[in-house]
């Protein structure tokens, strides 16, 4: 039988506010346990939550970026359950009326000729607080509780069950991951748990309308694990059904060591969270003026920018997508472009995606930390375009600028004497010298050895320390030898 895979994702994006969603504590990662937990965070008797306005701004930004509806009035609710790292015995979340509903993300699945486009619809996104951490290691027979994370603002982003493969799920997650960083609401650090995904996975016979019973894979903190976990889960579900066993609704965990998913709790163990509106908080009211104010500060979105790069600059879809992988990358490209001129869009793109990206990658640097400024890179491209230097020399100029040996390409070229020799008379004299000094190679070439020609070109270039225009050298040599 042919099976169709159905996947919906729930993502918890930690919002980049300075303080917690309902208290003034810092949310910085990595502090000693419990030092960033104040009276409100540890739920002392009598304390009360106060909503952090910045968290709401993040939600509005997200809603606008995905074309969703931003609720004029949404409600914070209490989700009640007992756990040692949940200090109040309830989590403040949103239930019936979330701040953001609808909208969606366009994703590209695969690359090159086989790439396909898809639109993933969002159900909702709501604000909530994170719980603390239970530390089971290091305490023999006991559990340590760190409440630094308790109260950290989260945006939970829920999709419709729109994805049909692990590849689509990963493509969606990557696009979302890039977007939340692009609009500056989440740092996207998956290792530190700033961006965590849960995948709801089910299978059904191809063509069947009703959804199969789903199992939820919790806490996928890398795209690779997401792919592996979903692939394993899908195969497991298909096997179960084909062997005559029904799927039971359950929450499962992925074990990266075994590559398998295993059940954590079944539907029977599911909590009754007893949601009800939190009487300590007023309804969240967002007026059109606030939405407009936040919208005014929103950057151009990656999708719009890609279309602009492809349309106005004539870049390929792949290049446009690569250059908009992050807002920093796009900003660098645009700055370089502004300096190099739009006619140089393609070479600027190539340098940014090629030499620069490779070097940054090698040195483990982000583009904002690039030793080479966008203007410096543009200077290199301009000097290639006007034939001042060859592509080969350009790499040396790039290296020199990277090493800080000069303020711009022109200064490096001047200081190093790397200006390309384009004077035909000078090159002709040089070629004559080379021919005279390398009679043996000339002999061999005339005898039919093509390799000998390359040796002659090499000698000519060497004599000018690379400064001669290689094309001119080649043309002249051919002319003289052939004549």
């Amino acid at each position, binding site marked *: 039988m042919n099976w169709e895979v159905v996947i919906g994702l729930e993502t918890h994006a930690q919002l980049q506010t300075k303080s917690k969603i309902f208290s003034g504590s810092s949310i910085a990662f990595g502090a000693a346990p419990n030092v960033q937990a104040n009276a409100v965070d540890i739920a002392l008797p009598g304390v009360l939550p106060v909503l952090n306005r910045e968290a709401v701004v993040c939600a509005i930004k997200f809603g606008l970026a995905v074309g969703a509806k931003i609720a004029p009035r949404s409600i914070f609710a209490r989700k009640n359950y007992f756990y*040692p790292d949940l200090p109040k015995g309830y989590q403040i979340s949103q239930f019936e009326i979330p701040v953001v509903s609808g909208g969606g993300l366009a994703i590209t699945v695969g690359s090159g000729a086989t790439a396909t486009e898809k639109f993933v619809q969002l159900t909702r996104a709501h604000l909530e607080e994170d719980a603390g951490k239970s530390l089971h290691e290091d305490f023999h027979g006991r559990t340590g509780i760190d409440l630094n994370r308790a109260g950290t603002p989260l945006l939970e982003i829920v999709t419709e069950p729109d994805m049909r493969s692990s590849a689509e799920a990963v493509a969606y997650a990557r696009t979302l991951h890039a977007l939340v960083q692009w609009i500056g609401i989440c740092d996207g650090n998956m290792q530190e748990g700033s961006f965590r995904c849960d995948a709801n996975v089910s299978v059904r016979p191809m063509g069947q309308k009703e959804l199969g019973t789903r199992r939820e894979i919790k806490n996928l903190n890398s795209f690779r694990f997401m792919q592996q976990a979903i692939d394993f889960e899908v195969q497991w579900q298909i096997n179960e059904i084909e062997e005559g066993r029904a799927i039971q609704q359950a929450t499962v965990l992925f074990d990266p060591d075994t590559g398998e998913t295993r059940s954590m709790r079944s539907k029977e163990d599911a909590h009754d969270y007893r949601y009800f509106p939190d009487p*300590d908080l007023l309804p969240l009211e967002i007026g059109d003026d606030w939405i407009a104010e936040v919208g005014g500060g929103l950057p151009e979105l990656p999708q719009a920018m890609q279309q602009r790069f492809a349309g106005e600059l004539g870049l390929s879809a792949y290049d446009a997508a690569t250059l908009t992988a992050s807002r920093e990358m796009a900003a660098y490209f645009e700055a370089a472009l502004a300096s190099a001129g739009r006619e140089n869009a393609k070479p600027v793109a190539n340098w940014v995606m090629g030499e620069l990206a490779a070097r940054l990658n090698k040195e483990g640097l982000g583009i904002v930390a690039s030793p080479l400024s966008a203007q410096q890179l543009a200077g290199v491209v301009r000097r290639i375009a006007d034939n001042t230097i060859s592509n080969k020399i350009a790499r040396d100029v790039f290296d020199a600028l990277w090493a800080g040996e000069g303020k711009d390409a022109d200064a490096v070229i001047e200081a190093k004497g790397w200006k390309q020799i384009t004077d035909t008379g000078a090159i002709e004299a040089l070629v004559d010298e080379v021919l005279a000094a390398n009679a043996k190679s000339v002999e061999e070439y005339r005898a039919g050895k093509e390799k000998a020609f390359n040796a002659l070109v090499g000698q000519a270039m060497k004599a000018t320390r690379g400064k001669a225009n290689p094309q001119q050298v080649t043309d002249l040599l051919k002319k003289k030898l052939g004549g």
Partner: protein
Amino acid sequence: MSDLINSSLRDLSAALAARKLSAVELATLFLDRIEKLNPALNAFITTDRDKTLAQARAADATLKSGDGATALTGIPAAHKDIFCTRGWRTTCGSKILANFISPYDANVVEKLDGAGMVTLGKLNMDEFAMGSSNETSYFGPVKNPWDVSCVPGGSSGGSAAAISARLAPAATGTDTGGSIRQPAALCGLTGLKPTYGVVSRYGMIAFASSLDQGGPMAKSAEDCALLLNAMAGFDARDSTSLERPQEDYRRDLEKPLAGLKIGLPREFFGAGMDADVRVAVDAALAEYRKLGAVTVDVSLPNSGLSVPAYYVIAPAEASSNLSRFDGVRYGYRAPEYADLAEMYSRSRAQGFGDEVKRRILIGTYVLSHGYYDAYYLQAQKIRRLIAGDFVAAFKECDVIMGPTSPSVAFAFGAKSADPVQMYLADIYTISTNLAGLPGMSLPCGFGNNNMPVGLQIIGNWFGEAKMLNVAHRYQKATDWHTRMPGGLE
């Protein structure tokens, strides 16, 4: 000295300002009374002479320099043990917090300390403010100073008994369904529950968040006005605190009552009220007419639904508010348990008393999947109807009056076996909490066995100054509020 214990806050303030009396002398007077009389009354859970006197000395220094002195500087007050007080034990009347020392002050405590008041100690109360007789306190019941075989009312029973017995000239209380007004009535004093949002709830241990409101308890309306001036005000740490200009609640105290329209809800004057209470309330209304007020009949048709709606909403919120008392971070933890689930269940089973458990069970039930709509949502709709009744009634009158409690103080054990009978003790007070309205109780005579009767005044939203005016003019014409129980010493 007996004039000092009966003095108004205004007179005490004047004596302190004139340096005829020091804050230390005044605090010592009350500390000595507490030491002598509290064992019989059990109004205080915690006292600390050193702390109190240190505060009094600081107040004297302020009074001496005059720098930063207020009308309350040097005046002693005691706090219901629901308010967190830095460095003092804050028990909320429960075993689960029996050893809890708060690292921070409640907003109300901060404000009264800031005004220079001197803390005499922490007052007994029904456990987590759940009760109308003070019989649910882990620290034992408070006795009514008018008759120690009777309850003082609840949940602010310690506050009421302390003022009634002149162990303190002023106290804080909280009122979720009548917990300031009912004990004020049963102990013969004046208490005010402000409009919801006027006094910050920060640091006031939550029972039912949408109903809880702190307020002053004292001998007279004038004293309450002075105290409310210091207690009220916006607090950014409480999202339900109202951002309004600071008021002087004394501003209208002396206004004549000629032409005042007093609404008498027919639902408050029906069969539920005891005859002796009725006599005292009727006499008070006659007095008001003498003062120039007119009475008009009004109706609160949904008030019969207030007790059932309250006993859905309050336990629902309480069941969630009390989840934090889990034995993990502070408070009582069972000495032995096999695993996490047992740590929770034993700590809570041993740490909470029966009434608290009953309400947690009710609250958990009404919020459960499949019952939420039938109970909680329905109760919230009733709440809106009740508020609507008041809106309509206040079109006909300036204030509403009636009995605070259907009976005078009852004997210990009289209602504690039947929760529903106990819940009905708050039948006249609960609807104001559901509507968020301000309410007061003031003494208006004595009923059976010479026990005090309370007159309730319900004001319109933010009508505190009006209520205080109405109460004060009555207290200028009568002397019920100056009566003090005899035979204590």
